[in-house]
């Protein structure tokens, strides 16, 4: 079986679903037998889910509109 270090080296590609079938099988075998890596994998997946679903850093229209309006007003003045 592969070591935790080897698992970690493939972790980024595995999360992005970019490993070959053989590598995937090795990694999943490791995950089924190593609690530390399993926790790491599970919590990282949860992190990604939380982050992607959080709707963070939405730019409210009430903020973006005045910025865009200011820029457009300046451009229109410059182009007169």
């Amino acid at each position, binding site marked *: 079986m*592969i*070591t935790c*270090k*080897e698992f*970690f*080296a*493939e*972790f*980024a*590609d595995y*999360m*992005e679903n*970019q490993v*070959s079938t*053989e*590598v995937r099988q*090795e990694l999943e075998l490791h995950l089924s037998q190593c*609690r*530390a890596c399993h*926790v*790491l994998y*599970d*919590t*990282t997946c*949860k*992190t*990604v*889910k*939380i*982050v*992607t*679903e*959080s*709707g*963070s*850093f*939405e*730019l409210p229209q009430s*903020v*973006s509109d005045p*910025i*865009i309006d*200011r*820029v*457009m007003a*300046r*451009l*229109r003045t410059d*182009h007169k």
Partner: protein
Amino acid sequence: MSFLTEIRLQDKFGPFVAFQDAFGFIPNLLHAQTLLPRVIEAQAMLEKAVRLKEGAIPRVQKERILLCIAADRQDEYCLAVDSKILSSIGASDRQIDDLLSDCGNANLTPAELTSLEFCLKLARHAPSVSSEDIEALRECGFGDQEILEAVLVTALALYRCTLSVGLGPEPDFGLRKGVSTRIDSALGDTRQSLLPDAHKAALRKGPYVPAPYLSLESFSPFAVVQRSHGFIPNFFRAQTLRLDLLEAELEAIDRILLPEDVLTRVQKECILLAVSAANLNSYCVAMHCNLLRGLGMPAEEGDQIAVDHRASTLSEPDRALLDFTVKLGTRSSEFSRDDVGKLQALGFTGEQILECVVVTALNNFANTLQMGLGVEPDFEPPRVFEQNKVHLSDASRTPIEGVHAAHLVEPLPDADAGLVTQAQSGGLEAFEELVRRHSQLIYRTLTGILGNTADAQDAMQDTLLNAFKHIGAFQGRSKFSTWLVSIARNTGLQRLRRAKVFESLDEGEHDDERKHHPRQLRAWQDNPEQFHSKSEMRQLVERGISALPPNYRVVVMLRDIEQLAADDVARQLGLSVPAVKTRLLRGRLMLRDWLSPHFANSVGKAVQ
């Protein structure tokens, strides 16, 4: 004399001694490379491992494969050398003549005949090889090792033929009278089965040969690729069944690709990209595009080289270098000493021309290997070369000729294109509409770089003004949104520099994020989000992301918040895809550590 200057090397020069011992002579093909002894070493390593070493395929069969490919390509130099070598290991003149004129009567076993047919097909037109061909080999009793070796011997044959065409060595021996310089007979006529169709293209799923997983730690020669590519591509992982052969290949790459004393690495990658595209090898095109991006070339420029290097913004000499390599790599029958003369007239030195020929040979070796093993892509290819659009010219014996990279899938049209044209002619309404469409993306890029929303809102105004100022220079080679992000990125970075908290977004040595060690190893609740309100979750995430270093923050922002694909993030930030992936992982792990106290099982125990 060959096309280039030859210099005298010591008789004790290792590869010369090895060839003298193995074949009884030192081929002139080696003398033709004496300007760069390291490339002779590379060839010697490949020949020793692939051709001479006892393996799964008997030596005599390997020699037959090499000879038949040389004959098929009408390469008189290799044909004469390989006939001599085959006869030196016991084949009679009659057997050689039979092999070249009518191999059905050359006393070959059905398995030998099938493997020869496979190798010729792979050498003639690699994109048409499918898992059906591999199945045919397996039905004749071929195992994984034999298949891998057959593919490697074919790749070596193309490596040597490319060198011989590009360097024009003096013949070592005259061709015996009557020796056919081309394969005839039923064996030669595999054209019918070469014709690809949609059904066959669907069968091209690889990898054809299983390869045990090996990490960088457990196979130290991978360090060469880690250094040259920044990661271990599937191309190399697919060959771990035979570590001796893989190691020789890596040592050859170390001698050909890595030194920058003659051609630069960027020039070599451009050569590899242009010839891979002309060979319709989507895998290698994707890989070299990504490597060039890592070396600082804009993605659009790499794409342009793949489609038509003449229309790229490379310098005139570099475009001429690519004319030379594409002709040598894919239209060898048209190649002559005059092509070498053209490069010399442009000021290229003998060493540079030699290295270009060797890199072209290495490319044909790699393209053949990738197609023969059905290696799966590492990246989404920027261009997909469709199999069913490959046309073989009428009765062509060398189908690769005449096939150009024109058969490409057109990129998706940019929905912004119409508005961009209006904005470029001063249409302010069109510009305003574009800006409103992409304000969220610009804002998130700026927040990613600057780390707080107030600065991002401030920088947004500058970004929009800069975008309008420069919109005339946008040439439509990338999507408009990509271009807009690059303006936001530069505006954000300028601001950081002014505030003297600048941290480069470029790739640096400390980019080996995989070494990051997560601190929190406590399991989390099953659905952590259900214990917190939506706005609490959002605030937590925003605080966590703001606390990340800018390098990681901007990647996490674009990939996980804005949800762009990894290669789009790479393109927009001017980074390589591997760099994006490693930064993303590190950013996510830091964020995970930061969120962990909020979501960890209160009763769970930390894992040691």
